[in-house]
């Protein structure tokens, strides 16, 4: 398994600067997620790495071997990069059986040895044994997803790319497949690059999250770092709920607010209760604060709307953005 390094990679579509000089390291065996709203450049970056689009400038390295370099005029063709990919709409070939869909990559690269065994193995790992002779349209959405996964990993690729693979599934199935996909990737020890706009997916699945906006990588870090120490107001806004003490400079996460002063060093804040929503395990309280921002806090009882109230937080919970 090899490490992927991206250096000053750039791409324009006409006048749109889809990706601006991006730097990124994908360590071997890690699960890295590109997270951001639509149009942030995450899919473009994925497609550039896959080879489905050609970068305008920059470099892509596998360990210290170039697979793309603008300066050196190297661009390894898509089909010889040895990657796997799970597409958003699965992109299973409708005229091939499940078996042939999975076997495609092996046949295309002439790895005929043990072909049957390897395909069976891949299908067993996604619990689809016995369905080899079905056609894609005879499978449920979740099963199609598994075939797409088996197809992407059967060739033991250097890197598996996931392009919002869960977005085509309904909510219940999505939660189920999220857990399953994570454990499959972990068990196989695959290097994975995953694209999503869903922060739950990003936070729960990844070793490393890369937050992107407007063609730029804003922050790279573990899910905990991204949540607790966002380095950019957009990251703080986009992931989780944020309460701003000084807009775009100092923030607090809702779970760190207290309803009483626990020690003398806690800071008090005053606000008016605008709305209370019952979430089952707690009440979510929306507060209009004196500094004209809106905060979120959690409580175990229903509070009366319209009441002015004090909330407290200790100094070290406040995150200062630089």
């Amino acid at each position, binding site marked *: 398994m090899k490490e992927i390094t991206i250096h000053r990679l750039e791409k324009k579509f006409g006048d749109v600067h889809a990706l601006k000089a991006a730097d990124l390291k994908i360590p071997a065996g890690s699960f890295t997620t590109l997270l951001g709203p639509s149009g942030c450049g995450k899919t473009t970056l994925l497609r550039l790495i*896959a*080879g489905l689009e050609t970068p305008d400038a920059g470099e892509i390295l596998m360990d210290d071997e170039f697979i793309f370099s603008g300066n050196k005029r190297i661009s390894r063709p898509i089909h010889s990069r040895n990657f*796997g990919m799970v597409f958003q*709409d699965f*992109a299973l070939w*409708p005229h091939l059986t499940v078996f042939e869909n999975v076997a*495609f990559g092996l046949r*295309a*690269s002439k790895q005929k040895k043990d072909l049957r065994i390897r395909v069976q193995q891949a299908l067993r790992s996604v619990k689809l044994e016995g369905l080899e002779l079905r056609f894609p349209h005879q499978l449920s959405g979740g099963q199609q997803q598994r075939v797409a996964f088996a197809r992407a990993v059967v060739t033991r690729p250097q890197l598996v790319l996931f392009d919002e693979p869960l977005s085509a599934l309904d909510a219940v199935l999505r939660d189920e497949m999220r857990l399953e996909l994570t454990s499959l990737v972990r068990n196989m020890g695959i290097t994975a690059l995953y694209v999503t706009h869903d922060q739950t997916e990003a936070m729960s699945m990844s070793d490393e999250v890369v937050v992107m906006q407007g063609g730029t990588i804003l922050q790279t870090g573990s899910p905990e770092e991204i949540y607790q120490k966002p380095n950019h107001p957009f990251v703080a806004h986009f992931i989780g709920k944020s309460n701003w003490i000084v807009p775009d400079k100092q923030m607090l996460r809702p779970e760190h607010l207290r309803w009483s002063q626990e020690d003398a060093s806690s800071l008090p804040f005053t606000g008016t209760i605008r709305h209370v929503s019952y979430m089952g395990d707690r009440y979510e309280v929306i507060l209009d604060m004196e500094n004209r921002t809106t905060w979120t806090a959690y409580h175990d009882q229903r509070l009366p709307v319209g009441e002015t109230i004090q909330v407290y937080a200790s100094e070290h919970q406040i995150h200062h953005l630089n």
Partner: protein
Amino acid sequence: MNINSLRSFKWVSGGLALFILTVLVLLPLLLIFWTSIYPNEQLDIAAPLRTIMSSHDLVEVLLNSIGLGVSVILLTTLFALPLAWIMAKTDLGHHNWLDVVLLIPFMTPPYIGSMGWMLFMQTGGYMEQFLPASSVLTPYFFSYGGMVLIMSLHLFPFLYLLLRNALLQIGGNLEEAASVHGAPFFYRFKRVIIPLLLSSYGLGALLIFVKTIAEFGTPATFGRRIGFYVLTSEIHKYISSWPIDFGKATSLASLLLGVCLVMWYIQTLISSRFSYRLIGGKGTRTKRYKSTGIVGVLSWGYVVLLLLASIGIPYFSIITTSLLKLRGEGVSWSNLTLKHYAELLSPGSQGLEALINSFTLAIVASSIAVILGTWFALTVGKGATFKQKITDLFSLLPNTVPGIVIVVGLILLWNARWMPIPLYNTYWMVVLTYVVLFIPYTVQYVKASYGQIDSSLMQAGQVFGGSKLYVFRRILLPLILPGMVAGWMMTFTISNRELVASLLILPPSMQTSATYIFAQFEQGAVAMGMAMAVISVGVTTILLLVLEYLSPDRKRRQR
């Protein structure tokens, strides 16, 4: 209105629609079969086959038709496949106007296209005037090969559209998935593109075959000139010129009908079993080759050449002929004149009368067709019950069956000795024929509009207090109106150009623009005929192009 009376209204309306369709469409077709197997007042199932097999000429005619169909499939493939690839895979595909222009050959009535080609290629024609040495080509052109060429140039846009759409859909993620998983170009082509394209191609090829053997215009003009006879031209001969032989005509018509129905059945089999739902996800972006360098030159060259052959040459010949003072003088500025148009359009002239006849017939026929077609389409609805499916099938039958076959059936029915309604040989018989021939267009367009309307829209109308009639008027009607307008325009256009029905059905001494063009071309006043062709085709082609440009389908494609 209580529930029972509402239900019975629906039932009566549905029953009546089915009855009318049976009389208008099904009965004439059954009568063809009946006449062909009931010669000499006694039942003889094998009679049509025997009639054909016993005559050496008729067997040859049958083989001619089939051979022509196969040849045209081959040549249209040769034209359409590279074009589809160019428009799907290079950035020429961004030129949306090309798609509209590429429809012109298909929209040009085949008899007029053939006339254009004949004027260009014949001895003393325009090609010879520009390039005298090219006269050696003339005998090669006036041959079976020339006929295949003319028909292919007319039909290729149809196959092109099918192939291009299939390529566009495959070109998204399915092809990308193949390349990511290690397939080089030729492997991708062999294992993914070709198999997925094949079902679309199969469908297209079958339809090309049916359209070729059903076509009348080219065989009636070019085919007659070179002495190449096919089913349609022979049916026409046995019904319109002495000695009239209904036995032979109906035998050939039964055969043609049978072949077309079988083809149509195979086509539905293919589309239900072997075609795949190819729907790109929202992220589908087709990568296109830049049309610069050699790719650009080859692509543009191919497109321009094809447009030149399919539009340039026939239209140039027709327009030039309509403008020349003296044909013998050749093409020069001093030899140009508008006098043919003036003569054609002068009050009281034969030409103006024919033109007015065509327009009024088309207006009356398309208005009736829209009302009937909308009614049928709404009766069919989403085609849930057996009765609705049958209604659907009958109302689309005239599109499946060759026009000349329907016309023969209508003659048999309305000219029958026992027919109490004296419609035959009147103005209204022509209207009826046009309505029957072209009703499928309205039915299809309205059905498509109706299919997109969620029933909750109507339910919402009722919940908010609208009566049935009010909901129909304020909600349903506005939503299906685009379909109705499209149906009207389509019917108007093709009624205006219809040749075979007009030739066979028009009462004596009445002419339409199509029969006028045909007669003038045959009798030598070619310039007048071509002036008429320019006016008639010009008006209706512009109408069709506007329709194509406005159609919601197209806007969605552009997104």
